[in-house]
């Protein structure tokens, strides 16, 4: 055997202490999938007469900016002024809601439920934010903001819990029911903004009343990125700690892994299932609250812009790991952000980014199956590097040390 880990203080060894194995575990297939999708997308655009490498270059520029822009930004930071290149700001703005809507898929997935009702929760969250602000005229803005968030998240959580409960107690497929409930939520939204909550001044675009400039959530200091991004990152980290580092999360995984085992262990399957649904729905609803209270100021059909559906893709690419949602949302936010530039610079159609997202989704589903088979056939040559890396990575220094000591004794 090789020397003990403790005697090799390399950089990657240090990283192992800080980057959890479950995260790397989730990311490694995602990275392979992203690379594969980029290749397929390159082939696809080649058919429309565009150089694939131009596409990659423009995507990189549109999502993350150029080295020159970063140089300028760093110079400004050096002079005491915080700056991020426009492209990356754009990416972060696109990523912010995806962080939250992805949780609506990733958390229920822990109990083995495939919820795709994030869109409905977003819509209801946004609608509740507008309603709460409308019902609390003259209240201090901090109180209004907190109320919007609390009420929005509660309603969104309850909404997704309905799908969870239907599955738990009536055996209704939660994927179908949550999808169909999206349309109910959108219909409720349209009814409200065109009926009881309609602001008569919003003629050409029926909307609710404005929540009031004082009640709007602000931006992150020194940038034009709204605080929703911070909410998203905090929510993802919270979800990860809850799921990977608490007994609640452990119990949730048991319920998701084997219901019988969970029952034998005395765990309440319904409780953990509904809790996961509630938390997921609350996350997506928070995205809706932010859409209204930080961006639009009103609830209208702009809320149903596919954020919930985009979250499904993010959650799958992040392989349902809340921590991995953060980089994946930023990557996919970058893909969306670069879509405009692809149209402008390379005359690709507006749908091309969606084609890329579609390819990515199929590839990630395909790789799931592929990964499942691979655990039995470890001799396949192209999977070996991944196996080696993962086997090495997931062995924690401490356990290795114990095993080593045991062998010596």
């Amino acid at each position, binding site marked *: 055997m090789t020397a003990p880990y403790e005697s090799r203080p390399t950089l990657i060894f240090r990283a192992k202490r800080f980057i959890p*194995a479950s995260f790397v*575990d989730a990311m490694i297939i995602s990275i392979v999938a992203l690379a594969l999708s980029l290749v397929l997308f390159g082939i696809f655009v080649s058919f429309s007469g565009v150089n694939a490498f131009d596409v990659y270059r423009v995507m990189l*520029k*549109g999502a993350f900016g150029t080295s020159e822009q970063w140089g300028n930004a760093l110079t400004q930071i050096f002079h005491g002024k915080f700056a991020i290149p*426009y*492209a990356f700001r754009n990416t972060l*703005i*696109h990523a*912010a809601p995806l962080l939250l809507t992805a949780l609506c898929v990733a958390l229920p*997935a822990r109990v*083995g439920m*495939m919820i*795709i009702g994030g869109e409905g929760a977003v819509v209801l969250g946004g609608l509740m934010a507008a309603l709460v602000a409308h019902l609390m005229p003259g209240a201090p803005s901090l109180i209004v903001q907190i109320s919007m968030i609390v009420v929005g998240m509660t309603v969104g959580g309850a909404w997704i819990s309905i799908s969870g409960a239907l599955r738990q107690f009536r055996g209704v497929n939660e*994927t*179908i029911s949550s*999808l169909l409930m999206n*349309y109910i939520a959108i219909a409720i939204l349209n009814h409200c903004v065109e009926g009881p909550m309609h602001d008569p001044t919003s003629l*050409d*675009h029926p909307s609710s009343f404005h929540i009031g400039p004082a009640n709007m959530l602000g*931006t992150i200091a020194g*940038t*034009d*990125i*709204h605080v929703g991004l911070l909410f998203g990152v905090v929510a993802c980290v919270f979800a990860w700690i809850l799921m990977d580092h608490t007994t609640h999360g452990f119990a949730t995984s048991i319920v998701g*892994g084997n219901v019988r085992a969970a029952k034998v262990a005395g765990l309440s399957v319904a409780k953990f299932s509904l809790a996961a649904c509630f938390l997921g729905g609350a996350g997506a609803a928070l995205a809706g609250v932010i*859409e209204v209270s930080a*961006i639009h100021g009103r609830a*209208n059909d*702009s809320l149903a*812009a*596919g*954020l919930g*559906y*985009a979250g*499904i893709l993010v959650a*799958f690419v992040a*392989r*349902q790991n809340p921590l991995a949602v953060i980089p994946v949302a930023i990557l996919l936010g970058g893909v*969306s*952000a670069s879509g*405009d*530039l692809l*149209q*402008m*610079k390379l005359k690709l*159609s*507006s749908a091309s*980014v*969606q084609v890329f997202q579609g390819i990515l989704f199929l590839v990630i*589903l395909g790789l*799931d*199956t592929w*990964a*499942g088979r*691979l*655990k039995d056939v470890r001799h396949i040559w192209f999977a070996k590097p991944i196996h080696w890396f993962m*086997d090495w990575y*997931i*062995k924690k220094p401490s*356990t290795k040390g114990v095993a080593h000591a045991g062998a010596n004794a």
Partner: protein
Amino acid sequence: MKRTNWLSGIASRSRRAAAVLVAAASIAAAVTGCDSKKESTTTAAPGGSPGAAPAASTGKDTTVGFLYVGTKDDSGYNQAHAEGAAAVKKMPGVTVIEAEKIAENKDCQQNMSTMVEQGDATLVFATSFGYFKPHVKEIAAKYPKITFLHAGGTLENGDPTNIGTFFAYIDELEYLCGMAAGSASKTGKLGYVAAKPITPVLRDINAFELGAKSVNPKCTLTVIFTGDWFLPNEEANAVTTLADQGIDVISGHVDSPKVMIQTAEKRGIYSCGYHYNCAPLAPKGYLTGAEWNWGPMYQRFVADFKAGKPMPHNYMGSLKDGAVKLSPYGSSVPADAQAKIEAVKAQMTAGTFKMFVGPIKDNTGKVVLEEGKSWDDQDGALWGMNYLVEGVIGSLK
């Protein structure tokens, strides 16, 4: 679990789910008809980047950006603007960047920012009505060195000075289409598919009916409002309903008349186009159509911009300056009718023709314009039109 095998957990859990998900996704696609709005949005913050210099002072190519609310090939409103952009593209020293399917919410602000920040655009055409308030106004305040031109907006005092607005009268063309429809119709029953009962649409409907009545006073026009600008299913249903009632000419005012024209052709009835030349969609039944002709106007605006001249301020084009045009006549328009239409068109081009001449009643019998009076294009009374003229069957309620 992590230690034994890193692959087992994820795989077993999601494979079954994946199958369900694919099934569900296909249902979603079927139900929504592939909803394809882009995700997310932004906040607008003051102070943006002062990256681009005014084009008039540099020798570089001027980059002109165009935003469309729909697709560039919708045979309708957006394609007409895209054709204008194509004309601008032909000008020397001009680069055109375009973005289609940009929703009328904060997305369009984000997109205009990208055009300026990353596309180096110094002149941006925002071509959809709903971009104006508040989006173009906000983004123009954020980028004071960039010029924004908006189709259909009305500038008020206190608006940023780097916005220009323009549009064109198309109701004159609708009058001519009405004449063609009135002459070609055998039943004297015409049909109109309209999106929303708002003033510009009502102007078109009324002009169409007045034109039809000028050649056949007995013509009636049945109107169906679909409720929104792009509802292909509703539009097809509306045409079918109208055709079932014995109506033999269809026209309409929706964002993309494509489905409407195709359905009419399938039913073997005549149609008049809108926005864009729809003749290829209905080689048999197409009579003529009211088209935008943004190309010459856009070229003029861009040339003025490069020369540093002032930008249009609530400018209204018309037949006079070629901002609108009539589609070539279909074979079903009789020659004598063509001559009559051409005569009226010549008067319109010369600025001597008056469409709204009293007496005009609305379809409830109320007199809206007394005998001996008339309105010209600019008349304020036209901007508040909230009725259908006599002969139009339909209600605004």
